[in-house]
């Protein structure tokens, strides 16, 4: 049988993949996609917890699913805004590469 641990482990792996993407990739758009991966892995854990921590009535814990709903909404808004900023950046600097935007330092 599939256990809660399996879900959590898979979710953790996805989170790690996303995190690795943020740390390893230098294209801002890809970094952004990696961030989405991280958010969604959290969603997976949440839903898993919701399913496995059944409420007294025998229902899944829907509070977690509501939270997932909020996370998805926020993530979508964040994507929209983030991409707008990236577009503005590209217009100004013709790059989406993080190494090209390191004027501010020390």
């Amino acid at each position, binding site marked *: 049988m599939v256990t809660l641990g399996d879900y959590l482990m898979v979710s953790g792996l996805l989170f790690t993949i996303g995190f690795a993407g943020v740390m390893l990739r230098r294209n801002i758009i890809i970094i952004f996609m990696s961030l989405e991966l991280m958010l969604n892995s959290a969603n997976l854990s949440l839903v898993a917890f919701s399913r496995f921590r059944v409420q007294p009535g025998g229902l899944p814990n829907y509070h977690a699913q509501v939270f997932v709903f909020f996370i998805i909404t926020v993530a979508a808004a964040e994507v929209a805004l983030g991409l707008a900023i990236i577009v503005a950046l590209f217009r100004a600097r013709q790059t989406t590469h993080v190494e090209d935007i390191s004027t501010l*330092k020390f």
Partner: protein
Amino acid sequence: MSSVLPWYVLLLPLISAAVIVLFTQRSRAISSFVSVGAAVVGFVCSCRVFASQNTSAPEFGWIDLRPLLYVPLGFVLDDLSRTMLVLVTGVGALIHVYSLGYMRDDDGKSRYFASLSLFMFSMIGIVLANNFVMMFIFWELVGLSSYLLIGHWFERDAAADAAKKAFVTNRIGDFGFMIGILMIWSVAGSVVFREIAAQMPRIASSPPFLTIAVLLIFCGAIGKSAQFPLHVWLPDAMEGPTPISALIHAATMVAAGVYMLVRVGFLVQASPQALGVITWIGTITAVMAALIATQQSDIKRILAYSTLSQLGYMVMAIGLASGEAAMFHLFTHAFFKALLFLGAGAIIFMLHHEQNIWNMGGLAARLRVTFLTFLIGTLALIGCPPFSGFWSKDAIIALAYQRHTAVFAVALFTAFLTAFYMTRLLVVVFFGKGRTETARHGEEAPWVMTVPLLLLSVPAFLGGFSFFAAKFLHLPGEKEAGELVLALATAATVAGVALGIYLYRNRETEPWDVSVLRHRLYLDEFYAWLIDATQGALSRISDFIDRWILDAGAVRGLSFGTWGAGSLLRLLQVGNVQAYALFFGLGIVGVIYWTVFR
């Protein structure tokens, strides 16, 4: 009325000094008048104090933190202090008058007389003080006024250096003095002489403690009375105006040490070990100074070394446990040495500040009064009967004969030397031919200078006779072995005189040159080296540590280190988001490890 009279005596000179400094600085004539007036009135008053048998005066609390410490400003008015008071004010008044002439044209006359008044104030204070702290106060003030007076001609490097040397040397002595006072106080619980005397059994219960305390107090006297090894300042102090040399460095100030030792005789005599040390210090000083005096060519320096030598006698007497003898010699010495200095001053003044005896000669004819009085002074000094010095010195030599043979021998030898170098001085200065133009044209001094000479020569001549001295002093008791000592002493004196005349008659230059003595046993050089090797080196090392290790190393190093650490830390901020994410991750992993897995 009469009970506050001592206060007038004490405060008159202070008021005079204050008036001069505050108001009459511009007008030199008024200043000198104020000061001389104060001195003369002070003398009159002190005569009245002496005459009246009143022994009490009002007392004020200077520091009153009873039961811990009570320092009164009060007087002791016994025979000793009253005699000393008359002596100090008397000699002082004469020298004030004399200074009117000697300092007639000096630019700093106001300053001079202010300092002189300050000196009188301090000296009277020492004489009258009834406790250690008050004595120390005036003790230090005497040092100050001596500094001011020696450095009167401060533009001259030699005078400036001499003043500094005098003050610092005295301070070294005072260092010991203060520790001694503290030690005595810590046991007796009081600084007042009378109360300390009452506590003597307690103090004497620990002989080593007492000995150390007494020797430390004696340190004060070593400094002030210029005993070996702190004698070096006195000859240099001759850079001051001659009246000062007479007043301070012959008659009064240097005697303060002796006076103080007599004042606390009850302490000193309670410690035989201390007495031994004191005796030998006095003896060494006496013979050493006399030896050096034989080879000096500056007239004032010769007199200065002679002063040292005589002070050695006095200290020797104290060491031999006879305060009376010491005071007797102090008393006579004050007169004849003041006389000698003033005479020398008259010569120097008339020869336009020429001080080298080899540039003088044949002055007996031209400066008759001066010569006459100088002769009296010399005879008194070498102990020629019946001049005053004979009686007092004889008393000390007799004392030594009784108590300590070695000391006696040295004392006798010193008497011989004294006669020798004074004869040398007299012969070279007053006889023979004038060796320079100025010497050939010297004239007699004005009356303001000669009158004090004449006045001083009276006690210098008579001072030793008991009918005169006994009015003032407790004379030392009758001596048993009188005849032998008398004969030996006289013989030594005669031998000295004879040798002096034989060697120096009609000489143009120094016939025998002993450079060790001429260079004062190289003690000044040795001290200069010693100071440089100890204090100088230490101060340079400390300065180096402070500048380079504490400040540059520790303080600035720390601040630079902090700054450097900051500069390194900011390099973390590389500007690359990727790196930032990495740091972020490192931080997270670290924090999780720190929290969850430890």
